[in-house]
């Protein structure tokens, strides 16, 4: 009896495993989305809303990271490839090249809003006022040598006071994402590079030797002052709560959700508030995107409707539900521009 059952189950599984091959692939009735883990919390809200208010199935959203998303997205046209990829940075030219080679020739680029990256600490500690230059000096691997103008030295600073006499004499300890993270890239580009540029000889390096300039600006110190805390931002928040001397680097939505425990340091005199990021005063903010395969619109049911939902005022507008999740909306004109791109399915230039 047991044996018969097992045999039955086995053959059933074999049949199930190797017949639906064609069937499952020729028709996919849900949208498949991949990409950035930063955009994931926003895209999922839209997807859920879309699934509940329309007759279509709820899109499936994988959190693969921006780079992983483009890799899957650009692999080709057809139901086995994703329809949309989310990204916390703009598409690179090498990725465009890959898309074109695989026949993904028309891609619609949609910017959805901005995300602020915050340097936050526990509310039990005083609020910090730092500049991007302070951040650069505190976290870069090599910093300008004050005794030898124009020369770099290994970062000697131990406390924030060493960096800037106005800051407290607290040891530098910053918890942040690892190099694989898009948040880390953006933080390096906006905060560290922004600070590095204030030194003239580093800024001059950009024209001469771009590679070296990037290395100087983006390399984070590895002597323990910057702690790679993994991709889980909730963990960083908990650690900050336990250790008031530590700082954390993460996206604005985590600050927004944990405002009772942590506070965002003012950078260049601006605190990371919703409004300050929205009107561009807060210096460390980056745009978020998603990219749509035009060839799939009309093939996969619900694509046009999903895009419409995302580009609606009730989603990405200043009072929309995405803003409640911590997405910083674009200015009116920019929103209108991208809404039209979505409506007319205007592909972006591919080179």
């Amino acid at each position: 009896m047991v044996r018969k059952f097992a045999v039955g189950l086995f053959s059933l599984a074999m049949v199930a495993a190797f017949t639906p091959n064609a069937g499952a692939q020729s028709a996919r009735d849900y949208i498949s989305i991949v990409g950035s883990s930063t955009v994931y919390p926003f895209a999922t809200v839209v997807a859920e809303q879309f699934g509940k208010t329309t007759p279509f199935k709820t899109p499936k959203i994988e959190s693969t990271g921006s780079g992983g998303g483009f890799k899957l997205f650009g692999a080709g046209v057809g139901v086995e490839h994703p329809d949309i990829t989310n990204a916390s940075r703009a598409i690179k030219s090498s990725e465009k090249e890959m898309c074109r080679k695989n026949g993904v020739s028309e891609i619609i680029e949609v910017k959805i809003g901005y995300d602020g990256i915050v340097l936050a600490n526990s509310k039990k500690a005083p609020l910090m006022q730092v500049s991007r230059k302070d951040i650069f000096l505190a976290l870069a691997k090599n910093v300008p040598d004050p005794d030898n103008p124009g020369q770099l030295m290994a970062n000697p600073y131990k406390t924030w006071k060493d960096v800037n006499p106005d800051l407290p004499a607290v040891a530098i300890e910053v918890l942040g994402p690892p190099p694989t993270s898009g948040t880390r890239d953006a933080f390096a580009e906006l905060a560290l590079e922004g600070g590095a540029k204030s030194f003239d000889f580093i800024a001059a390096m950009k024209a001469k030797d771009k590679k070296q300039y990037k290395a100087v600006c983006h390399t984070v110190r590895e002597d323990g002052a910057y702690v790679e805390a993994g991709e889980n931002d909730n963990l960083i928040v908990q650690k900050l709560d336990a250790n008031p001397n530590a700082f954390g680097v993460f996206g604005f939505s985590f600050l927004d959700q944990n405002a009772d425990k942590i506070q965002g340091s003012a950078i260049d005199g601006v605190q990371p508030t919703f409004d300050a990021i929205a009107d561009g005063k807060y210096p460390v903010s980056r745009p978020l995107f998603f990219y749509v395969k035009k060839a799939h619109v009309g093939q996969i049911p619900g694509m046009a409707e999903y895009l419409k939902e995302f580009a609606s005022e009730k989603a990405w507008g200043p009072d929309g539900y995405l803003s409640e999740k911590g997405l910083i909306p674009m200015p009116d004109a920019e929103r209108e521009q991208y809404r039209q791109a979505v409506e007319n399915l205007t592909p972006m230039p591919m080179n």
Partner: protein
Amino acid sequence: MDIVRRGLAKRYRAERRFKAMGVLAIGASLLFLAMLFVSIAGNGYTAFQQTHIRLEVSLEPEAFEGISLSAADYAGLVKKSLRRMFPEVSGRGDLRQLYALVSSGAGYRLREMVMARPQLVGQTLPLWVPADDDVDMLIKGHFGGEASGSATRLSDSQRQWIDRLKAEGKIEKRFNRTFFTTGDSREPELAGIRGAVAGSFFTLVVTLALSFPIGVAAAIYLEEFAPRNRWTDLIEVNINNLAAVPSIVFGLLGLAVFLNFFGLPRSAPLVGGLVLTLMTLPTIIIASRAALKSVPPSIREGALGIGASKMQMVLHHVLPLAMPGMLTGTIIGMARALGETAPLLMIGMVAFIVDIPGSLTDPSTVLPVQIYLWADSPERAFVERTSAAIMILLAFLIVMNAAAVYLRKKFEKRW
């Protein structure tokens, strides 16, 4: 004799020390286990309750005129009833704050009710709707009472409204049924584990259906029929190797073979089950071979002696006796497969999936992946839900492992 006696005290001491160390080792592991359980249960038990707010929703016939039942503005009706409860609130900003007390799922719940019983239209019905996750956290005391105003996600006026609702008995914690009946959601108060449980179920069905027969057949052949030579030694070494391979490797293999070569759909429990089959096969083969080995040769010889063929000997005598051990190994392999996320990452099962999967090829996720996704969500209310989901997963694992122990105890034969 004297030498023995002199050394005796020392040997006893050594034995006592050894035993004490053993007790200490067990004690330490029990302590860690208890700490794990206590912290998870302490974080998670509140998730089984959800704060609800009582509304008087009047389903005015005007709201349903000229449109189908499904298209009516249910969220608007919920908002209207909130306005009636707090008539003094006005102004766009204040109203937004008022509406934010109630979960965005309230409208859907109302819609479900009306769709199920259309005769409700025209009546005013009392309705307990889920509160927003921030309200829920406040009521459960996760925001720390003293923090005020701008510091938290709730404004002072929202706190006053909540206090008033509390005084009127219109806000209370109720059993969180949603947690067991819905799929994933980005609103913590609407999120549930049903989708993940269904995904885990389908995945394990595929895994069990493939790995048990294949594993047992391989074990029987290797143990009873295969000649002992260099080839079978090589196979044995490889099986033992496979059992120790990190599970992510199986995910990569699954991506290359099942998705890219066979073209099976991404994120499907079918592919997840196939990958986990590869992962659990070595475990099952090794356990099954051990079970076969433990059947004494006298049984085989007796069967062969009275004229049974080799196949009859195996199927009629050896296999039934080895079955409890094989089942134990299979269940332990299944328990491991149930807790696995890494190989599923590569085949797209780490995904946001709201709809509850209904077949082997629907996109789905599994319980441990759901835990991973929630642990990474910014909303505070997901912290307790993460722990609650871990409790469910642990419960399944305990049941499975207990079943393994029970089977072993019940059918075990001592020779």
